[in-house]
């Protein structure tokens, strides 16, 4: 199982969200984590916003991975949001963003968190994966996409196991 599969509960996947700005997306993300994990929404909002001020977490190709540290959080937790209409994100390619993976980590950043980020970056770099995320209509299907994803070099091993 990949690192991402462990930290993304199906309940934290939100499709077709209507948000008109980055700020609104962060508000909605706060709400999501408050309802599902009991993390105060203002804490999520402030953390994501503060991190974004230091430099955009937009990756290009319509993808962003906003992340932040949360005081008191025990382990990393993620959420996936697909927007109905893309929003401006100051991404390196200047394109607005509609696929967002929100990642919250405990206050003490560790090597693990960097590994998670790099795995996310790898996932979203895969064009076919992005296409599938855009086309899937069900939360369950999206969840499966994330949990079943394997890094390219592991693909062969997986096939061998099946």
């Amino acid at each position: 199982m990949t690192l991402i599969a462990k930290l993304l509960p199906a309940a934290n996947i939100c499709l077709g969200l209507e948000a008109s700005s980055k700020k609104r997306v962060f508000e909605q993300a706060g709400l999501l984590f408050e309802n599902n994990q009991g993390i105060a929404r203002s804490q999520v909002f402030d953390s994501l916003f503060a991190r974004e001020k230091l430099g955009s977490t937009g990756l290009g190709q319509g993808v962003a991975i906003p992340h932040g540290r949360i005081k008191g959080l025990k382990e990393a937790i993620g959420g996936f949001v697909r927007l109905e209409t893309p929003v401006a994100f100051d991404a390196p390619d200047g394109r607005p963003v509609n696929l967002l993976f929100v990642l919250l980590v405990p206050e003490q950043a560790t090597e693990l968190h960097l590994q998670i980020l790099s795995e996310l970056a790898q996932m979203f770099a895969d064009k076919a994966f992005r296409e599938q995320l855009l086309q899937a209509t069900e939360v369950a299907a999206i969840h499966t996409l994330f949990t079943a994803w394997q890094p390219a070099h592991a693909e062969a091993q997986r096939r061998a196991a099946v």
Partner: protein
Amino acid sequence: MKIIILGAGQVGSSVAENLVSEANDITVVDTDIPRLQAMQDRLDLRTVVGNAASPHVLAQAGADDADLLIAVTASDQTNLCACRIAKTLYNLPTRIARLRSMDYAEHPELLDDSNFAVDFSICPEQEVTDYIKRLIAFPEALQVIEFAGGRLSLVAVRAVGGGPLVGRQIKALREHLPDIDARIVAIYRNDTAIMPDGDTVIEPGDEVFCLAASEHVRAVTAELRRLDKPMRRIMIAGGGNIGYRLAASLEDRYEVKLIEHARPRAEFLASNLHSALVLQGDTTDEMLLEAENVDDMDLYLALTNDDENNIMSSLMAKRMGAHRVVALINRRAYADLVQAGRIDIAISPAQVSIGSLLAHVRRGDVAAVHSLRRGAAEALELVAHGDRKTSKVVGRRVDEIRLPEGAMIGAIVRRSQREVLARMSDVTVHETEERVVMPHHDTVIEPDDHVIVFCADRRVVARVERLFQVGFGFF
């Protein structure tokens, strides 16, 4: 960034002008339709007509989606009210208010999130007052800016023949002042910036920008021109907000004469100032200036809110023999026209006062922004975050950093934590130490360094900011 600016006055329009060129989405709110119209004709922004303190108007301005609210109307109450509304109704993340009255500054608790919810407050009048006070402390300087709580100063000085360094190469500075680490970051010659190196020869008339520890500023200035004697007599024309604040803070140490045209205001000033002499009259009245010995003045300050008036009265004072004249000039075109002519220093109040505000607007962690040469150049204090992987500056030598042409790292303020063992208990106490590092080509930037970058052209600022932003992998 989505930004709402409340108030299309001098401060509001300067901020808008400054931000509109960068990738920002700006909406300006004001009740004055012609003023908004004029702004919209000139700048690429959206305007909303209405009362800035009304929820409905804020909603129309896009408060629901905005990243930043800049409340700079002329009314403190409107600004405070707008911040509260923006926080309560629209969860607007960052709110800045202009507060002119000193009353609020005495009660900072009023600004916290449970009250007016103002994240940062600015007072343009106070900033301009402080700016002029620094010019009085360094009578030879054209501009003085402080960094790192006053430890480090940037001074602009016009080189005058006879200064030991004038006519010589910059590298001679090290021989002249072997114990002082000072850095000449830029030279303007006939209004054109020259990025200096050790071989550059300083010519008379050059406007030289120099960074040094504050206690060394005078020694460095003395290299560029003969030092003036300290100021004693000061005449201020215009007893408005700035004139009054300034007179009040100077009257104990200097002989201050303050000219105010409006009789009721003059009476107010006379009863609130204890040793400054308040004169009621016209600041462009030659007879009055003569009768009050303008020719004896070390400094004449024209601080009314009328540009033309300030220009005329300071020109007149200069001709009549005032040693140094300074004029407040709002219109930048006028200011550029008269500075370095017969008026010694032209100050654009809006440019002076928006620096503290711009620091919050810029991307990345920007601790301070100072506008130089009336907005043409900028000095930035940027905080470097991250490590060699996530930052384009941290862990690199100064000569490895890919600064855009026209930008230069002038100094570094390094904070280091020292462990102090508290003897009585066994608790370890950390003491933060700040020191100024004058960088050489092989100085390595450390995380959390405050880096002072001089941008000779405002157009390179955005690229400098981008350079200091952290990469994707930063937590």
